[in-house]
């Protein structure tokens, strides 16, 4: 159990910067998910916390201790790999105890820890089996078991579910969440899957191009993305964006207008006439209606029916497509003209630099 502090961490390979001034504080017992598109540096960050890759600059502290120069085993971490990385020539029990031999854990204690981990992960029946005789989900549990028996201060997970099939992914996700509840340990978890991030995390760290874009609780990221990248990354299907301009400012209200949607007033004090903006609305926040705080019209071009909802791809007057999620049995038909509206609090506005514009609607 320990907190984790990362300060001004950098990683460069020659001229390429992989991580650029990363700062992150993780509380004791917190489940933090690093999420981002591939190549954003999230796995590199995890490997640097583990001590498998060296830093080009900056500090990593685990439980208040500077670990920059320590070997992985001395940092009090345990890592679960995407490929499971089980030793193929050792049975499950040996896989779990192999590392303990070298860290001075007496045999009786080793057996106790294996028994406990096996009970927790339902591995009792499998202890004498070899990895080749196990299914993907079982291998994953053994890999987690191997991490548990080390009793680490911090668990590191590197995309642990991406090799599992969809059904197994959901059940293993639940198991990992339960495990965190039982062990109450600090976990850093890397994934590119935003569903995993949203469901598992206490806090999500969204990364892009070697930088942290936003750190926050899952729903904060969803309801108040700090910038365009986070707005577009979190949520599926992705948020619709509309180009806009500030037409006039009057009494703390800005008149926002742009091609394709009806002009509306935004209670924001920081805007000036002529500012370029991006307006973002999530597909699931657009509903059919006549008039609302935010309204956009177009011709339905394509409908994807999922059952619980349908995605309507609508072509606006300025010939751009946007997506609306329509609930209910009455699905839109292609060719139909539709007006879609959203509530004021579901309209996100970003300035020319891509940063969120705070409005009175946020309060």
């Amino acid at each position, binding site marked *: 159990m320990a907190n984790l502090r990362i300060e001004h961490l950098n990683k460069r390979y020659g001229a390429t910067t992989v991580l650029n001034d990363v700062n992150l504080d993780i509380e004791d017992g917190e489940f933090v998910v690093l999420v981002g598109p591939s190549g954003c540096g999230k796995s590199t960050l995890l490997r640097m916390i583990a001590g498998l890759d060296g830093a080009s600059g900056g500090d990593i502290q685990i439980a208040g201790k500077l670990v920059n120069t320590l070997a992985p085993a001395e940092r009090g971490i345990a890592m679960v790999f995407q490929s499971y990385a089980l030793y193929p020539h050792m049975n499950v029990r040996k896989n779990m105890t192999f*590392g303990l031999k070298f860290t001075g854990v007496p045999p009786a204690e080793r057996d106790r820890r294996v028994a406990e981990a096996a009970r927790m992960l339902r591995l009792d029946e499998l202890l004498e089996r070899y990895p080749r005789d196990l299914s993907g989900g079982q291998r994953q549990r053994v890999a987690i078991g191997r991490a548990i028996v080390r009793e680490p201060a911090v668990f590191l997970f590197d995309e642990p579910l991406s090799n599992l099939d969809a059904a197994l992914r959901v059940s293993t996700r639940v198991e990992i969440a339960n495990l965190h509840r039982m062990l109450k340990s600090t976990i850093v978890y890397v994934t590119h899957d935003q569903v995993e991030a949203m469901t598992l995390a206490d806090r999500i760290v969204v990364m892009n191009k070697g930088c942290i874009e936003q750190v926050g609780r899952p729903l904060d990221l969803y309801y108040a993305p700090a910038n365009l990248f986070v707005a577009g990354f979190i949520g599926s299907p992705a948020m619709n964006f509309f180009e806009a301009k500030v037409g006039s400012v009057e009494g703390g209200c800005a008149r926002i207008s742009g091609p394709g949607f009806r002009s509306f007033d935004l209670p924001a004090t920081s805007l000036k006439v002529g500012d370029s903006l991006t307006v973002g609305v999530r597909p699931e926040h657009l509903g059919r209606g006549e008039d609302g705080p935010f309204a956009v019209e177009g011709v339905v071009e394509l409908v994807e029916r999922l059952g619980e909802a349908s995605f309507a791809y609508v072509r606006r007057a300025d010939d751009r497509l946007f997506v609306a999620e329509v609930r209910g049995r009455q699905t839109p038909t292609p060719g139909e003209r539709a007006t879609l509206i959203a509530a004021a609090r579901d309209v996100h506005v970003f300035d020319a630099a891509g940063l969120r514009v705070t409005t009175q609607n946020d309060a």
Partner: protein
Amino acid sequence: MTAEQRAKSLSVHLVLIAYSVLAVGPILLVVMNSFKVRSAIFGSPLALPDATTFSLVGYEKVFRSSHILTYYSNSLIVTLVSMALVLLFGAMAAWALTEYRFRGSTALALFLSIGIMVPIRLGSVAILNMMRSAGLNDTLTALVLVYVAQGLPMSIFILSEFIQQIPKDLRDAARCDGVPETRIFFEVVAPLLRPAIATVAVFTIVPIWNDLWFPLILTSSDSTHTVTLGVQQFLGQYITDWNSVLAALSMAILPVVLIYVILSRQLIAGLTSGAVK
């Protein structure tokens, strides 16, 4: 199977059978004739030994008249010690060259690969001089050293390829587990290299066991001769004792065949792994 496919596979098999006969024929001839009397060896060399021509005289003479057991044990010692050293050092060097980046590692890898291209026999004179000045002339140690040098480059080359196929995550997992680097090599990497090691073992053993050149120039006394060199004593300038030569040769073939049979399963796994996935 259609007729066309059958014809195709038949022709392939014909070629393979012809090749096998060509390769195995001379060896069969040696073994067959080692069990015949001298007149039958020359009278009908291609005939199988029968009641009138069967004789163990060659084997009797070999055991009675020569140091064949010393030769045999010399060959065994040299081959096995060389093989063990080639495998140990080869695997360790291959691991170091693939896993660690250090100053001069590329140069070292390049230097070792030159060893594959340049035959070691080119350095015979220099080796002879070195062994003489090191006082190792006429010792089995000299042979072992030469054979280790001869076998290392190829074994490093083959084992490096195999080590690269071992997932990187395994080594990282072991490091996170707190396993020391030497134990990672011996307890995680080496067990996974077993098919490769069998392959390298066979490739190392066969040329060493069969080598005539280095025993010829580096050993001079009966106590250090190997089997291949020992056989030569039956080949005289004027008279050759063919019974003994063929008997000794047949015996010399035996160990290599045995080792090959033992390792062949692993060997096939080693040769084909990576090819089919």
